[in-house]
């Protein structure tokens, strides 16, 4: 047997034993990318939650409807800038069910400030004249006595043009600066029928944060709504279904029903799809909801949605 020099022996020894010992010297730094540490608790449900509360007292309903999400505190952190986008587009009284109920908006403003929000702004690009619209819908009263500001998006300077990378038709749009600069964006639509888009719930409400609505109508309304929803992603959606408009939407006056519900969620497609049920429709019947689900914005199939119901 040929003799190995001592130096060669030590080299070989290092080559063979190295891989065994090196991991023990630098256990995490080198291999942590490979090793996946599984949490000990159960993984959270992948199904989006839609929470529904039926009742009379609007402020209590709001608090209750947010419980499955861990309350408003899970969305609004201390000194956050919150933007609430109600539907206050029309000169219609709250009873006519064309606009979000001012008490709900007020309740939300109060909840946000209780959670420590820095500033709360209620924004709307009204369809009718904003002075009249804010008076008649009761939005002026909703912010009165709170620190929240009510802002009508009426000037060119209120909007900023942004790119919509995932947009199919809408490649660019001028969107409200307040919404773009917000830490928390809360969409508070009312559920009602619509003469062109069939229903107007959450995603259709985004048109009130956009400058040029005419473009949507000229170039395919439903697909444009889905396009704008790829960039306007509310952190929280609270749908006012305390009363809903069944005919002559979106402005009315028409037949009003009172389901007395408030619906909340974080998945815009799931929320709209669920709220379509109020009109004996499903999300599949409404083209812009289908388009949005095609763009991967959320879950349209209610069988895959975790629906939490509660009564007050």
């Amino acid at each position, binding site marked *: 047997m040929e003799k190995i020099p001592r130096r060669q022996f030590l080299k070989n020894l290092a080559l063979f034993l190295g891989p065994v010992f090196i991991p023990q010297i630098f256990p995490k730094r080198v291999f942590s990318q490979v090793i996946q540490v599984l949490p000990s608790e159960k993984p959270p449900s992948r199904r989006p939650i839609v929470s529904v509360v039926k009742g009379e007292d609007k402020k209590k309903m709001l608090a209750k409807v947010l419980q499955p999400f861990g309350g408003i505190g899970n969305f609004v952190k201390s000194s956050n800038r919150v933007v609430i986008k109600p539907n206050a587009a029309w000169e219609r009284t709250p009873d006519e069910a064309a606009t979000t109920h001012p008490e709900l908006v007020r309740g939300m403003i109060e909840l946000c400030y209780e959670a420590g929000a820095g500033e709360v702004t209620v924004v709307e690009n009204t369809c009718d004249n904003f002075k009249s619209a804010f008076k008649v819908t009761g939005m002026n009263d909703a912010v009165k006595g709170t620190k929240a500001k009510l802002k009508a998006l009426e000037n060119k300077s209120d909007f900023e043009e942004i790119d919509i990378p995932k947009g199919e038709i809408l490649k660019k749009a001028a969107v409200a600066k307040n919404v773009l600069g917000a830490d928390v964006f809360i969409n508070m639509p009312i559920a009602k029928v619509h003469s062109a888009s069939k229903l107007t719930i959450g995603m259709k409400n985004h048109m009130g944060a956009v400058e040029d609505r005419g*473009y949507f109508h000229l170039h395919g*309304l439903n697909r444009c709504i889905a396009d704008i929803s790829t960039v306007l992603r509310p952190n929280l959606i609270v749908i006012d279904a305390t009363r809903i408009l069944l005919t002559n939407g979106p402005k009315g006056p028409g037949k009003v029903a009172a389901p007395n519900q408030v619906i909340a969620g974080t998945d815009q497609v799931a929320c709209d799809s669920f709220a379509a049920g109020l009109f004996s429709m499903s999300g599949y019947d409404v083209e812009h909801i289908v388009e949005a689900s095609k763009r991967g914005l959320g879950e349209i199939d209610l069988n895959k949605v975790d629906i939490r119901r509660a009564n007050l």
Partner: protein
Amino acid sequence: MRRVTQLIFFAIFVFFLGRFVLENAAGIAAAISPTLQIGNFLRLNSVSFLWLIPAGLIVLLSLWKGRFFCWNICPVGFIQDILPSLSRWKSNVRGLNVVVFLFLFGASLLFLNLIGIFDPVVIFARVLSVFKRPVYVLGLWFLVPAAVVSILNFFGKRFWCFNLCPLGTFAEEAKKLRLYLVNKQKTEVDISRRTAIAAIGGGLAAGALLSLARSSYADERLIRPPGAVPEKFFKETCVRCGNCIKACITNGLQPCVTESGWDGIFTPRLVPRIGECDEYCNRCGLSCPTSAIRPLKLSVKRNVRVGLARVNRSACIAWSKGELCMVCSEFCPYLAVGSTENKGVPCPVVREDNCRGCGHCEKHCPVSGAAIRVYRLDV
């Protein structure tokens, strides 16, 4: 001391004529002038009794103190006082003001409300309507009367007040009349009886001639504000103060240029493409000092028909291109735009019984130039 009073009243006029704090404060402020009310009376248009109270107070003030209004209250007088002038003081042509007043009086009997048109408070109201945003080039024409007054003032201090102003003449002559009738005081007579008759006669003749040349033209898109008196009387009674144009919250009321003939220049018309007639607003009627636009309650105003909408099917994207639109129906406050199915797409149809001609549909139509437009009622 006089400056202080003038400044206070100037601020009051600016406040009420410019800001619309109270519902019909602007109308009452402009109607404060008794000569404007004389013009209203000549054009046979009634103003509510309440509105005559401030004018009545001015009449009493004039009977007692003469030109007190001119020196202490009148905003146009104040403007002239603070603007520079070549001459130190009055440069009046003796008796000219009475002649002008009588001439305007005569002409107002047969033609437009000229006494009101040349009223100083109305001239000042026009100045304020320029500050309305957004400013239109056309609105600058409202500055012209005040500019002329200022230029005349430059050559002779308060030239307008002493030689032309109907209100100033009224105030001065009222006091003289009181002195003559009550105090039996002999006063100087500025003009002879013959000149007075000639002035009225000249006014009547001019009014007759001008009314022969009156235009009956009305554009098919001439839409008067809600509550406006019939077209023929509208041009006669409107003093073009610009109050309604300034009061309009949507900015839809704009001054006419040629749409209602040459004698209807600067009268208000609704341009729906700029702004619709708001459902919850009746400020134009409330701010009108002559009741050319009658003050209507909101519940009544909502149901007043000012025009009629019509769809141009070859321009409408629903009818011609099969696009999903129906914005007109969406915006209509009165359910006056119905829909019918055409090639599987809902298309707008005007329900004429419901249409008030408010112009929400035209304002928001996404087609350039609007495919649904509001027309005058009788075309």
